[in-house]
């Protein structure tokens, strides 16, 4: 019985807990309630994963109303993987939040913070599981609004500006997506995504549909922080409260990427997007530019948070590139890296949050010698950094392998070489941090620090261990990704 209602449960757990949390006075009670809701969602997400494994697609009608009038929830392996991503990594970050928030705001405001956090998580889950195009827009707006609120809570005054900038750009993006959906509805008369997928091929010569594609791509590219629409990301990540960045880096852009993949491959279809509209000609150069510029800018940053933010732009470039290579290896790489990077970046930002918790700042020179004063946290940071570079036996290696294989499958040796060079750039900026952390002396004017409490340390280490685990057992990540890629590309497996 319950298993049939899982699609609704996984969404409602967090969605309904959010308003309850906002009414609580004590931050601690709100935290415990959020933890319960979120970890139950994790269980539900894994159960869903189990149900769809092997290529099954679940269809669930919200409220019993049949599509295309009611909202349909469609979950296939790709959506299930993204839901696991959101819930699991969100849960790990929330676990660290209680301690992390103590230094940022007063106790009674914590409840409001958790409420916003849960709302963000719920809306992201909603985007992923819904089968209705307008519903995507609604949840996208909810997630954006809650994200702006979360970012604005940062202690630095520039957080307000960063949130405002993100709000303007994000709203433009969301509006473009709304226009695109509107155009599609105008021509086909339906908002259900599966229905659209069936009806759109008849209208591919229609200017309105072509325009909707263009609007959609620009709107979603902005959400994915694809070059040149990445401008909002570095400041947003840098000035957001410490643990929030971990959550945002893991989820917001990945869900946007999911939407991009879903619409490009499923709704608009491969023939329309790539053969007619030649999307690959646009995406490949832009993603390469994003990768190169992101990596190079990261090397020169002195603020570690900003460094990791620019690194994210580069990594998102890898994902978009994999998508536009149009072969199984490329798309596998894209989906696998979506998961792996979420895990690695969340871990890195959380480890950094732990360091800032003690040291107070994220400037590189203030983090000198932290390898000796906070050995456990820094060790986890090194493992996660190795995952980012793509050292074998870490998850990052798996995604890099598939991506470079995808490039070689197309016979593009220069691109493969470029991807390797950018990996070396990642090595450069990670090595820079490790060098300062272990080999430079602790600055003379610093208070002595010790390692963080267990509640902050454990989630960080879980991320580090997962990075190694998913570098060895890749059934859930690359295995699923490959099946998904084959289905989306229409290749017989």
């Amino acid at each position, binding site marked *: 019985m319950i298993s049939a209602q899982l699609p609704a449960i996984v969404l409602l757990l967090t969605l309904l807990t959010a308003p309850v949390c906002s009414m609580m006075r004590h931050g601690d009670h709100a935290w415990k309630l959020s933890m319960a809701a979120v970890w139950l969602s994790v269980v539900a997400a894994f159960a869903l994963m189990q149900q769809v494994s092997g290529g099954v697609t679940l269809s669930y009608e919200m409220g019993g109303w049949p599509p295309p009038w009611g909202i349909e929830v469609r979950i296939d392996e790709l959506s299930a993987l993204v839901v696991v991503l959101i819930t699991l990594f969100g849960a790990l970050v929330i676990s660290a939040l209680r301690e992390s928030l103590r230094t940022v705001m007063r106790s009674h405001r914590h409840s409001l913070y958790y409420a916003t956090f849960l709302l963000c998580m719920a809306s992201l889950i909603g985007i992923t599981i819904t089968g209705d195009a307008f519903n995507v827009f609604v949840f996208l707006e909810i997630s954006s609004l809650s994200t702006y609120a979360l970012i604005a809570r940062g202690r630095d005054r520039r957080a307000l500006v960063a949130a405002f900038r993100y709000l303007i750009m994000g709203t433009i993006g969301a509006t473009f997506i709304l226009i695109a959906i509107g155009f599609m509805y105008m021509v086909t008369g339906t908002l259900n995504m599966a229905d659209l997928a069936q009806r759109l091929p008849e209208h591919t010569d229609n200017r309105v549909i072509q325009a909707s594609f263009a609007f959609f791509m620009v709107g979603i590219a902005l959400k994915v922080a694809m070059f040149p629409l990445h401008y909002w990301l570095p400041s947003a990540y840098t000035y957001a409260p410490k643990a929030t960045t971990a959550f945002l880096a893991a989820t917001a852009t990945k869900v946007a990427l999911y939407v991009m993949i879903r619409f490009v491959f499923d709704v608009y279809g491969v023939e329309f997007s790539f053969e007619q509209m030649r999307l690959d000609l646009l995406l490949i150069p832009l993603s390469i530019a994003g990768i190169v510029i992101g990596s190079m800018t990261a090397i020169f940053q002195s603020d570690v948070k900003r460094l990791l933010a620019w690194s994210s732009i580069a990594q998102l470039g890898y994902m978009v590139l994999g998508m536009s290579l149009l072969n199984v290896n490329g798309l596998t790489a894209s989906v696998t890296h979506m998961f792996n990077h979420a895990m690695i970046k969340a871990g890195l930002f959380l480890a950094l949050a732990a360091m800032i918790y003690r040291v107070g700042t994220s400037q590189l020179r203030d983090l000198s010698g932290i390898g000796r004063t906070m050995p456990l946290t820094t060790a986890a940071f090194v493992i996660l950094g190795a995952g980012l570079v793509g*050292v074998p036996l870490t998850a990052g290696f798996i995604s890099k392998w598939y991506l470079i*294989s995808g490039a070689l*499958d197309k016979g593009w040796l220069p691109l493969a070489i470029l991807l390797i060079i950018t990996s070396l750039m990642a090595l450069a900026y990670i090595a820079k941090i490790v060098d300062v952390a272990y080999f430079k002396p602790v600055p003379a004017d610093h208070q002595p620090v010790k390692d963080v409490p267990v509640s902050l340390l454990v989630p960080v280490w879980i991320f580090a261990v997962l990075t190694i685990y998913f570098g060895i057992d*890749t059934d859930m990540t690359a*295995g699923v990704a490959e099946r998904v890629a084959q289905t989306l590309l229409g290749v017989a497996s």
Partner: protein
Amino acid sequence: MTSTTLLLLSLLIPLIGGVLLSLQTNANTRDTISLVTASTLFLVVLGLYPSVLSGNSEPLILAEPIAGLALSLHAEPLGLLFATIASGLWIVTTIYGMGYMRGNNESNQTRFFLCFALSIAAAMGIAFAGNLITLFVFYEMLTLATYPLVTHKGNEEARRGGRTYLGILMFTSIGFLLLAILWTYSLTGTLEFTEGGILDGKASPTVALILLTLFAFGTGKAALMPFHRWLPAAMVAPTPVSALLHAVAVVKAGVFTVLKITIYIFGIDFIAETGAGTIILWVAAFTLTAASFVALSKDNLKARLAYSTVGQLSYVVLGAMLANAAAITGAAMQIAMHAMGKITLFFCAGAIYVATHKTEISQMDGLGHKMPFTFAAFFIGALSIIGLPPMGGSWSKWFLLMGSADAQQWILIGLLLLSSLLNIAYLLPIVGRGFFRPLPDGEGTGVTTIEEAPMLCVVPLCLTAAGCVVLFLYGGVIYDFLQMLIPVAETAGVDTTEAKP
């Protein structure tokens, strides 16, 4: 015990031993665990000989991270030879390390022995790798495990050396080796080490040439110029580290990788037909000559030995690129012979430092009178490196010369002989100064007395010096064992009967 269990044990024993010893607070228990682990590992490796000799060794699959590409271990003759050398010399180095670290009162000894154990585990993984991806994984692990050893002293110099070390090795492995592996995979669809190679028919001669060049430069641990700078830079490490890792495990892993890829990915016949080794052949020839000249100019003993290693490693690469039966045999033998000889030399350098705190050769006049065992061992090790009988090194030099003659590369023969002369020039004077010059005034008498290094240092170096002689006497056994590497058609064409002792 089945070969698969033994393979698994060869990885687990050093890892578990390392974890166990790192938890000990008592230095004596810790060092005992170190020794016991090393001895057990050696026995496990020896236990693999029956299955390899009979051709029955089974592969062991550890995990399958990427669909179709498993992390697997498989014992074969070349890998077994490398593993024997590494595990056997680990025992000796552990004893030496105990003597050196205690004699010099070094800090962080637990971290030192732990990283040693991890490095050996990685070396076992490289030795027994069943395919290129496994080899790559353990190759990277070796770089990362040896990094804390190189930067052990923690000072600015160590940090700089460590940066060069990590920078060059990671740059070459990610930049060239990974690219070559991926390219091979896209050409052939497999990465398994197969007899006769996997590239026949899948790659044109030009592609094979570029690919082999990428592989060779990608194996930074083989110290081919211009990617050799990490080796002298790593001399900032304590001498036991230099001895094992840079005379035995790290550099041997490098040339082993090149040789293994030559035999099992490209195939000896394929290289001979397509001339894929041409570029690297001359890079190796240049490296062995240039390194010998540079070694001549160095006064610091460890630096001189480092450049000597750079040159000696190129012998193996040279043999691999010549790709005929005698050259391959010589290359494989050189792995063993050079290991034994070089480790002796490094042990002596460290013993001299522990006893006298001297590092420059110009200061070492007359020390032979006070440290006779050390300098005698140095003499024996030097003869092996030079390639004179009755030391093991003479066999590997002989076969490499034969291989060059078979390939009608007269210039190479000239360069090999020149290099031997240069080896004499930069090694023997050290012994000569030690024995035939008097001690500088004011030393050796009165306040500062110099005596032989601690027993824990002297015994290992005498053992390895004796090992050089033993390897000479058992050259025939090693030769027969290595013939398993050569495809049958090759041996038929080469007349090596008079070479067997």
